[in-house]
């Protein structure tokens, strides 16, 4: 791996820090949404695209803005 200034690797320098609490909170919300969906009769469940969109929105909602 290519070394950057100060002995850090490129990956180290580019590493984006994540807040573990926020990760846990998003994860909980996602699982909850999935569980809710699975409880529905098959014909009434949300589609794959709808679920992906819901997760996508959840991440945008909870991740802090710069």
């Amino acid at each position, binding site marked *: 791996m290519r070394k950057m200034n100060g002995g850090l690797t*490129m990956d180290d320098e580019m590493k984006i820090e994540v807040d573990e609490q926020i990760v846990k909170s998003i994860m909980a919300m996602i699982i909850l949404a999935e569980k809710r969906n699975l409880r529905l009769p098959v014909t009434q469940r949300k589609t794959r695209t709808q679920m992906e969109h819901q997760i996508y929105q959840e991440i945008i909602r909870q991740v802090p803005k710069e």
Partner: protein
Amino acid sequence: MIIRQIKLNNFRQFKDRCTIDFSTDKTNNVTVVMGDNGAGKTTLEQAFTWCMYGSTNFAIQELINRDVRESMISGDIAVVSVELLVNYNNHEYSIMRKQRFEKKTTRVEKISNDIFLVKEQNSNGEFIPLPDIKGVATVREFMPEELSAFFFFDGERLEHMSKELLEHKRSDNFKGAVRGLVGLTAMLEAIEHLGKPGRKSGVIGQFDSLIDNAGNSNLSEIAGVIDNLMSKQENLKKQIDDWSDEEARYSDDMISFQAELKNMQEDINRRREFERLQALIQSEEKEKVKDRQALYNYFAKHSFGYLILPLLEEALGEIKTADKLDKGIPHIHADTIKFLLERGTCICGSKICNGDEATKHLEALMQTLPPYSIGNMIGQFANQARSLAVRETDFYEQMKQKTQAYQKHDAVINNAIDQRDDLEKFADKEKVNSIKIKLSTAKNALSRLRNDIINAKTECSRINDKVKYLENQRKEIRKTYSKNKQNMVYLEYAKVIWEQLKTTYDEKEEEVRLELEARINKIFENIYDGGIQISVDERYNIITNIVTDSGDYMSDLEKNTAQSYAIIFAFIAGIIEMAKNNNKDETNDGFPLVMDAPLSAFDKERIKRICTVLPTIAEQVIIFIKDTDGDIAEKYMDSIIGKKWLIKKHSKTVSSLEER
């Protein structure tokens, strides 16, 4: 959940209303449903799944009874329904699914939206309907849908799983069961929806494309290349998995071919010995014929002399006492002397005259010669008789020896026949050659597959390096666009969430797989002979090994149907045990096991064990057996059978139920 009753209405073969009450007794917890092939055993099993989850795996999906369908006229509406009465957590519930059909001008069509209704009995004994969503959730609580296929285990699944085992295939059934037992379906769904990092699909893919679209065309290009490479890598991994399975199968085949050849080598040696003995028998038979002929010939030639020996001896005794015997000249007849006298010349040439001494002597001699005297003849006879007597004295010994020589052949032949019969089973040469060809094919295939796997792995690793390189390149380019920063943070969160969920799920799945494996082994030991270790690798290949006395594992043993069915029984029992274990709050009062039981595939001892073990694992057992297995079931399970039913087949389209 304990099933009290099932009510069928126009469901496949079951025309009009049919009801079965199941045994809910804790001791006699087995309900036996007997039926001939095609009577409707599988239909009945599928009725449970259809009622609870709305799905079936019939090849022909039509649910309505054919007679009912045929009798409908335009505008008629017919109803197909299944209702289950169950006990759960000390409450009674009714689960009912109803599907209506309408006869349009030419065909019968489903009326959309089937009716699914779950009712709970209140303290007044009335059944109160639950709201739609709560009804679905309640049934899932009774029994998770992912596991239902193992609690309602039909003959088709039994065959499928048996095939997986016998053909050493990867077991999708086992994988499905583990996933169902992990109970993290929601997590699995979330992992799927987040999408694999690097791929264009899923939430992660959406963030990736958001960043790339905000960047420049290079980024989109790199993303496309990465996606292609990862897709190629996934295909290669799948290919490696398939090849590895194939490699394992060829490896197994090679072991079995080698073992077969080894057995056949013994057969070949036996065949050689067989042929040697066959040749020996033939040559001995010939010698026997020769010796028999020699015996007959000898007897024919010598038996007369031997038989008259006592007479000869008596005659010789008599002759010995007679005094005339020494006076005659051997081989001279009286006519010879008479001729000499008439000629007047002796043999020596001397003149003989009437009245002289020589004439007198000859005349006296003539009186001792035949025909005047037989003394000489007797003398000759005596000589011949003595010579005969001497010759035949060893007749008995000779006969004895020749008979022994003859009989000896019989002993050799009989012994050789016995040995030959013991060697009757031997390999045929064509089979040996065919196995040698198969072995050589397997060797070649194995070597080709191993090469392919190595090449594919090298290619995978090359792709991996390239993806890493491109990812870094992408990151660097992305960094130069400030508007990407926020999106990259979203992406990082999505990736971290995916990794954490994946790791958690994989760990849990591994844990459940190993626990199920251990349980299966324990149960299998109880229902089979033991001495066999069942293991399931991370790719869900089921391997059975013989455990030797020293505790080592020997190579995969040859599987048979009874063994594979026993593994399946152990497998189902293991799932039930684990499902019970997962139900720690004990809200569920038990699990029913509804399954086909091909009892006739087992020997008596194993039937006994299976019939003893299964009802102790599941709180309720509903088994479907063939009519012909009825006696076996009665013999081994009579003490635990609570109810018995017979499916009576009236025609191809109509069956009914009768309590026995």
